[in-house]
């Protein structure tokens, strides 16, 4: 454990009243002449850690100024929980984070560096990606790196054995679930113990019923949660409950994915990396998906839920006080915004897909290729519920609310009124 980690731990422990101020007062002295860029990494799992390591090494190798990347890896969840204090003390120059509202939130608080000039040179990013990298002030703050679309996953062999067809419409989806039940399969694998996995289902139902614009406004606190639209989402979800694995609140997503792998369940709404991690290597090819079915023809299958991970520059970065330091960090971001950088990463982590249009996809698995098609055909790309709204709202209101709905799907009115009341106080707080 480094000294800074220890201090950060102490700051949290002491209630973090005065320590952030003290920490930032410590400072880090003069910059190091732009030779090293400090990188705050939340890639604590072995696969992504190794993959990012390879990408940074590629940067060091091509850097003409002999620049290097000093990676500071922090456990994924701790990183997330401490992001506020991290960005306010003396953070690393560049750090890993998420696109969308989750990034805009910190941009608005003045904790991120505007990198519009870096963006001006970027090629190969779609308009949807630029939107997700742009703050509310119209400036860019984020370099997208990879994403992982959500869809309905299943096993090819199971679908073949029973002669199932991927459903296009919601009625066909329910009919398929009914058929699976007759065939002694639990239609939907379902695990929500961590609180967030069921949000993907909520998002898809919401976007299929009400469209992406509504999703965005709802997440931004501009729509009423106790209105007709959201109630319809929960009512539709309730239709799926009899076909879902019971006891979802006591089951982790890993256990749900394992039940799919064991052919006990037929389908599951997940992101690309989730089922993949629970399938042994020789069964990977049996994994397939179809896009979440159409509910309202007006919105079709326009929106795809595909959270984007990437890089940002921290306003208070320890080496960013000098021009040279800032230049070095920008140089790294420029490199990370190239197809080559993404390719290097994905060689080691096949559970995501590149965001760059020119990235070489020839090494992709069939599943990855299908994911690329899904995302590139999307009219809108949404982030996950917790990334599209305020963090305090998603973690203190939405996680308990969805958990409650799964335990007791019948009291929708009480539930949405609860959410709306809390939303009003939270969104009014600044």
């Amino acid at each position, binding site marked *: 454990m480094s000294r800074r980690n220890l201090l950060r731990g102490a700051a*949290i422990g*002491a*209630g*973090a*009243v*005065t320590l*952030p101020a003290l920490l930032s007062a410590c400072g880090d002295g003069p910059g190091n002449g732009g030779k090293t860029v400090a990188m705050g990494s939340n890639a604590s799992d072995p696969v992504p850690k190794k993959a990012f390591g390879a990408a940074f090494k590629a940067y060091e190798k091509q850097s003409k100024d002999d620049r290097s990347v000093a990676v500071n890896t922090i456990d994924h969840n701790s990183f*997330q*929980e401490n*992001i*506020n*204090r991290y960005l*306010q003390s003396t953070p690393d120059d560049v750090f890993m984070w998420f696109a969308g509202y989750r990034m805009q939130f910190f941009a608005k*608080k003045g*904790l991120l560096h505007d990198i519009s000039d870096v963006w001006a040179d970027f090629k190969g990013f779609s308009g949807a990606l630029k939107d997700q990298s742009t703050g509310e002030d119209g400036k860019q703050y984020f370099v997208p790196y990879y994403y992982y679309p959500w869809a309905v996953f299943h096993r090819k062999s199971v679908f073949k054995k029973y002669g199932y067809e991927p459903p296009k419409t919601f009625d066909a989806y329910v009919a398929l679930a009914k058929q699976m039940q007759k065939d002694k399969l639990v239609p939907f694998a379902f695990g929500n*113990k*961590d*609180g967030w996995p069921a949000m993907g289902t909520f998002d898809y139902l919401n976007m299929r019923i009400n469209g992406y614009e509504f999703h965005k406004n709802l997440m931004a606190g501009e729509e009423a949660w106790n209105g007709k639209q959201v109630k319809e989402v929960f009512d539709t979800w309730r239709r799926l409950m009899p076909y879902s694995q*019971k*006891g*979802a*609140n*006591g*089951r982790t997503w890993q*256990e749900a994915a394992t*039940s799919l792998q064991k052919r006990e369940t037929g389908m599951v709404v997940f992101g690309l990396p989730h089922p993949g991690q629970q399938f042994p290597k020789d069964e990977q090819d049996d994994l397939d998906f179809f896009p979440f079915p159409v509910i309202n023809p007006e919105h079709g299958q326009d929106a795809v839920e595909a959270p984007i991970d990437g890089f940002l520059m921290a306003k208070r970065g320890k080496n960013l006080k000098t021009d040279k330091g800032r230049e070095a960090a920008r140089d790294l971001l420029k490199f990370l915004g190239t197809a080559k950088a993404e390719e290097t990463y994905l060689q080691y982590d096949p559970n995501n897909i590149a965001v760059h249009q020119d990235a070489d996809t020839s090494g992709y698995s069939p599943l990855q290729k299908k994911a690329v098609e899904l995302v590139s055909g999307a009219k809108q790309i949404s982030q996950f519920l917790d990334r599209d709204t305020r*963090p*305090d709202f998603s*973690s*203190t209101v939405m*996680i*308990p609310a969805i*958990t*409650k709905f799964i*335990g007791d799907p019948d009291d929708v009115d009480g539930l949405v009124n*609860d959410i709306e*009341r*809390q939303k009003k*106080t*939270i969104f009014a*707080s*600044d």
Partner: protein
Amino acid sequence: MSLTTPRRTRRRGLRRFTARDLVVLGVLLGIPILIEVFIIWGPTLASVALSFTSWDGIGDIKWVGTDNYKNLFTEYPQFWPAVRHNLMWLAFLGLVATPFGLLLAVIIDRGVRFSRFYQSTLYMPVVLSLAIVGFIAQLVFSRDQGALNAILANKDDPVDWLGDPDLNIWMVLLAAAWRHTGYVMILYLAGLKAVDQSLKEAAAIDGASARQTFFRVVFPTLRPVNIIVMVITVIEGLRAFDIVYAVNKGRNGLELLSVLVTDNIIGEASRIGFGSAIAVVLLVVSLGFVVTYLVQELRGEKNR
């Protein structure tokens, strides 16, 4: 004691304080006082102050009066369940686990066969942290893969011990009590060993039954131990956190005040003002117990 002695001691005492002694005293007293002020009372008072603001940990601190408390009592669905669970925790530990620990201590103290074996087995969970107890509880109670459902062999309709909000609090209380019982047992065992054997013999000669001996003679002599056990039980009840956090982050029927504080303050949420308000509620509840205890103690001292 003669009247002159204290005066003489005092005079000698005063003379003994050299400059160096004063420095040493100042440091030895000063450091704890500083710690007390900066690590305990400072943050406590700061929390109370912050509970009247809407601070999110980043921007300016804005005063909102009692809004946080109003929201907490009327609009935060997790609050009242958390209060209820904290009280259940106290009641369960105090009325079930603690008496059970006392019972075990008495039985073992009687010297049943294999008492060393029971003693060590029952004490074993105490050396585990509650977080570990939480993980063990999951191995036992997990719906799909838990040992309990495997033993019950109800594969078609397994009971969701930890996922069902009506059930899981009891399962977690059982796991917490498993640990607490051993703790209490050891304390009482130590106390019982210290009870003067001649008291028991005297009671036996007077014709008291085993039960009478225990309740009329032995138990009253355990007063100091009782107080320690009571304090420990209250502390365990109020600080309960790790086990529910290990099971499901304290959601879905396992809400506790300590978890709500963490959810709001530590997490990405950073609703520091609101979280502080919850912490203040917990503080007030704890102060209730602390004050009661202190009043009892001070009164006891006077009577002694």
